[in-house]
């Protein structure tokens, strides 16, 4: 069980988050929605442990993975090395299989700069799932993709989540994405942002 109990978060003395309390059960997928700039990404960064400057507590597993808004890959490393450097416990065969699973078979030696945005997002997804995390955090993972690629990526993500049974928290602006992937939708509102009781 992932327990998030954020009481307050300030940026330069200005409150941006109020009470944001929620839990995520194992195997549950939760979508976080709300207007732009309300603090959705801030919540993800707090849950991921990237931002530790807040009031409250977060109980998270050690094994977590994050898919960032941008693919956030190492551009000087090949697709395969991007997996192996982050997950040194994987052997090359397993890492190559992880690439095949996201549709990047045969692109092991390609540098991220040689991949399309959709392929880079697939690689980012492969990196997230390759470590068998208990919690997956995704920050608008399908943004900037054309409709067809976005639909393929959503289906792939849905399948991977179903295969691994991990807990997932993701941010989206798309009601369709939330509806397809999420078991539950949390809607942020107000200033500072809060979850309605």
């Amino acid at each position, binding site marked *: 069980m992932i327990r998030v109990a954020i009481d307050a978060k300030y940026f330069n003395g200005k409150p941006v988050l109020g009470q944001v309390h929620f839990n995520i059960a194992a195997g549950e997928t939760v979508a976080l929605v709300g207007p732009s700039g309300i603090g959705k990404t801030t919540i993800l960064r707090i849950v991921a442990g990237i931002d530790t400057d807040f009031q409250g507590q977060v109980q998270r597993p050690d094994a977590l993975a*994050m898919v*960032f808004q*941008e693919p956030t890959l190492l551009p000087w*490393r090949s697709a395969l090395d991007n997996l192996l450097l982050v997950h040194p416990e994987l052997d090359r065969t397993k890492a190559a299989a992880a690439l095949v699973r996201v549709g990047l078979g045969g692109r092991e030696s390609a540098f991220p700069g040689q991949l399309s945005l959709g392929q880079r997002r697939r690689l980012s997804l492969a990196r997230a799932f390759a470590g068998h995390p208990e919690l997956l955090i995704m920050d608008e993972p399908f943004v900037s993709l054309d409709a067809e690629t976005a639909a393929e990526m959503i289906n792939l993500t849905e399948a991977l989540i179903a295969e691994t049974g991990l807990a997932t928290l993701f941010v989206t602006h798309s009601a369709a994405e939330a509806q397809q992937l999420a078991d539950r939708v949390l809607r942020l509102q107000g200033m500072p942002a809060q979850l309605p009781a």
Partner: protein
Amino acid sequence: MTGTRFRNKGQFTTPLSIAALGLVWMIAAALTADPQILPGPFQLIAPMRQELASGELLYHLGSTLRRVFWAFVLAMTFGLILGLVMGRFPRVDRWLDPWLVIFLNLPALVLIVLCYLWIGLTETAAILAVTLNKIPNVATVVREGARALDPELDAMARVYRLPAWVRLRHVVLPQLAPFVAAAARSGVAVIWKIVLVVEFLGRSSGVGFQIHLYFQLFDVTMVLVYALSFIGVMLLVEWVLLQPWERRVRRWRNA
């Protein structure tokens, strides 16, 4: 076709440019008409052969190259660490920035003289003086690189709990590579010039020492023989070591 033609033209630019410089030198030598003031390029061949045959040239080139190597390694190492720390930690930067500005503006000659006065006319003093001269430049360039590090890659490294060494080697240093390469190339160029001054003032070997010797004898030919020999060595270092290394660390950009 046009691109190939332009590329082929570009290949001849460097040798043609060097040949033009040689021509200017030959004309100047002819106009001066006094080999004791300015010998022509071909007049250096015989004395250079003589110095090579006697072993003097290689001995002094070796001494200078050894000092350049150690000063370069030390300046790059400490400059890299200092620049990285200052670029990553604003509080440290605020404390050390005034020091950096002072050392950047301290004339090389002052540091050399002080090192010789405090430590003595030793090899340690010579290498330390050159190193101290170069560290602030390396630190300044690397600090800019450290300030420009991608915070999202940092976040990725934290989320996936990459060990500190992996983070440094595979996330931080590749981002700093262009800055390190720039510092290294300008470093080599500046360091060997300072090494020559250090040798000129207080060593009994090296190209700088030989230039000092032939300066006292007013032998312009031998001054040019030693200076040009070392320029040749440094060009070799640039073409054989630095440029291939730079191409290697940048190959992913051209992939």
